């Protein structure tokens, strides 16, 4: 089959390197295509449809949901309670603060700092640092969630044990500072990605650039500001968009705080989960889902357009 194609279209040389015929390729793609359709594409349109209904788990609207138009959306954006705790607006603002503090400041800055510092340390320090940081990133979420829960526990927690041993008072962090707990948690959890991205970007800069700066008399800070940072600008933009998207969608803080106490750590993903699967208001939950998809779509479009600009 491939041969006949080459004969009929000699200009399309790419075909020479095709590993599979079209038929075989289609056969291999079909299972994945079916799975994606069933679990991604169909739910995508289903969620949009459900968001225009008053579908619930129980009651008569469970069997015969009615079409309610944009009513779910109007409820979400109801100005009278938009910013109250436990409402959509509150969790949206909370999520924005969470993204700013834990992704843009926490992960990106910490990752950048670590990536810069491990460029010059002895190889064994570099390897140990990378191992610890990456371990925080690759461990399963449930394990991590439980480990942090144990770490922060008021009575038996490791952190309080450490504080007591140096004579500092105990704290009930999960109740007193829940927002900062999840910020620190997410920073710790995700800094590895930024560190690795920036680290590989830094090490792709020819060493002679920094040596020339050394000889010219530049300090560490000047080398970072004048050479390191400008030369990885593209990687920084990529990193910021990716970690913003990931942090915006993250659900893991739920394992630590359950969204509480009293909605104080209820990010949009957790709000969405509560509305749909605790309150069983499928229609309203679907509407939250659609808004989240739109926000993600905006990020994705920015990301893709930047990628295209880089190539051109």
């Amino acid at each position, binding site marked *: 089959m491939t041969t006949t194609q080459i004969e009929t279209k000699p200009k399309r040389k790419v075909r020479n390197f095709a590993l599979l015929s079209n038929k075989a390729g289609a056969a291999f793609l079909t299972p994945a295509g079916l799975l994606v359709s069933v679990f991604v594409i169909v739910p995508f349109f289903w969620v949009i449809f459900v968001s225009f209904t008053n579908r619930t788990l129980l009651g008569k609207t469970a069997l015969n949901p009615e079409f309610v138009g944009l009513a779910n959306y109007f409820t979400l954006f109801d100005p009278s309670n938009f910013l109250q705790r436990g409402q959509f607006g509150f969790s949206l603002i909370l999520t924005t603060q969470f993204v700013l503090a834990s992704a843009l400041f926490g992960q990106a800055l910490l990752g950048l700092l670590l990536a810069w510092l491990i460029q010059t340390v002895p190889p064994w320090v570099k390897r140990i640092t990378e191992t610890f940081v990456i371990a925080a990133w690759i461990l399963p979420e449930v394990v991590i969630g439980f480990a942090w829960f144990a770490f922060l526990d008021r009575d038996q927690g490791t952190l309080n044990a450490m504080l007591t041993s140096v004579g500092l008072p105990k704290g009930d962090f999960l109740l007193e500072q829940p927002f900062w707990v999840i910020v620190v948690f997410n920073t710790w959890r995700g800094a590895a990605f930024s560190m690795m991205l920036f680290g590989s970007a830094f090490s792709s800069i*020819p060493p*002679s650039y920094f040596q*020339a700066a050394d*000889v010219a008399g*530049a*300090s560490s800070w000047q080398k970072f500001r*004048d050479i390191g940072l400008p030369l990885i600008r593209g990687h920084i933009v990529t990193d910021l968009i990716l970690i913003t998207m990931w942090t915006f969608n993250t659900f893991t803080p739920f394992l630590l705080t359950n969204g509480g106490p009293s909605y104080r750590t209820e990010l949009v993903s957790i709000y969405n989960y509560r509305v749909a699967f605790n309150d069983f208001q499928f229609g309203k939950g679907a509407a939250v889902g659609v808004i989240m998809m739109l926000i993600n779509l905006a990020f994705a479009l920015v990301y893709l357009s930047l990628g295209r600009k880089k190539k051109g």
Partner: protein
Amino acid sequence: MASVEFRNVTKTFGSFNAVSDVSFSIGDGEFVCLLGPSGCGKTTSLRMIAGLETPTAGQVLIGGDDVTHYHPKDRQISMVFQDYALYPHMNLADNIAYPLKVRGKSVTERHGRAREVADVLKIGHLLDRLPSQISGGQQQRTSLARALVYPSQVYLFDEPLSNLDAKLRLEARGFLNHLQRDMGMTAVYVTHDQAEAMALATRIAVMDQGQIVQYASPIEIYRRPATTFVANFVGNPPMNLVPVDAVHGDGQLQLSAIGITLDGLTMSSAISAALGGGKTLTLGVRPEHLAIAEPGAPNTISGQLFANENMGPESLVTIERPDGSRVTARIFTDDHIALNDAVTLGFSREHVHLFDGVGNRIPADGE
């Protein structure tokens, strides 16, 4: 400007001895080339002067101060890198003026100074361009300008011309020579190109396997190479080296090898000392000191014609001796010379170099 000195400097990387126990000094205003094949330790030596490598043992002195453990920025040096190390995100003016920026000079001052230097190097009209928008030769001059923009004690060059094509390299070499005459700078210049070293240096340090084999003026290295390694490395094409058997008696030394006729040489104390180690010596004659001669005449080497390359002002005639070794002669003539299969090359007595069994030069009478 300042002097540079190495005192018993050793540098090892793991188990590899890059530089072993090297001592030499470079006088104020000297232009010294470190010459040798790749892996001989020349670049490592240069980087130890710059402070980019720290010696495993020994001391490095600049201007009489022990700077062995100084950071590069505290050494008041300039360096030109092989890949130029120009910053792709800065235009030429900012690249050239970067050393002034880190010294806290104002924008007007550093751009003014960058323009002065750039004008001298004939890149003044390119100051707004990015490094990617100029040619290789212009990039080379930009990196040179960055090295010259601030006062330095020593200027270091790490194979600065090796990324240029042949024509640009000649031009840049001439320019560097002019600059050295103009400024009288102290410079250390690493190269593997013997012609570059000969053309630029006031002294050449020929290095091999982490050690300095000979440290002398270019003309001295050309006329009296200390070892067969130096003889073989300097000169283009390199010196012809032929192993010969030595027989002595009556105060005369007879050297013989297949296809070679030689007048007897007067024995000297140096020769008899060298012969203590064995009966085999190495005879060296530079290609430019060979000429076509009559077969059977004294002081000749003969063999079968192997190649006859016309280079324009000269021809390179290579013959193959009965033992398979080759001897090349530079015959200075514009005309293509017609040669038969058997060729005899003659030389005069004063152009003969002798090396002992391990390759060290045997000084001639009066040396």
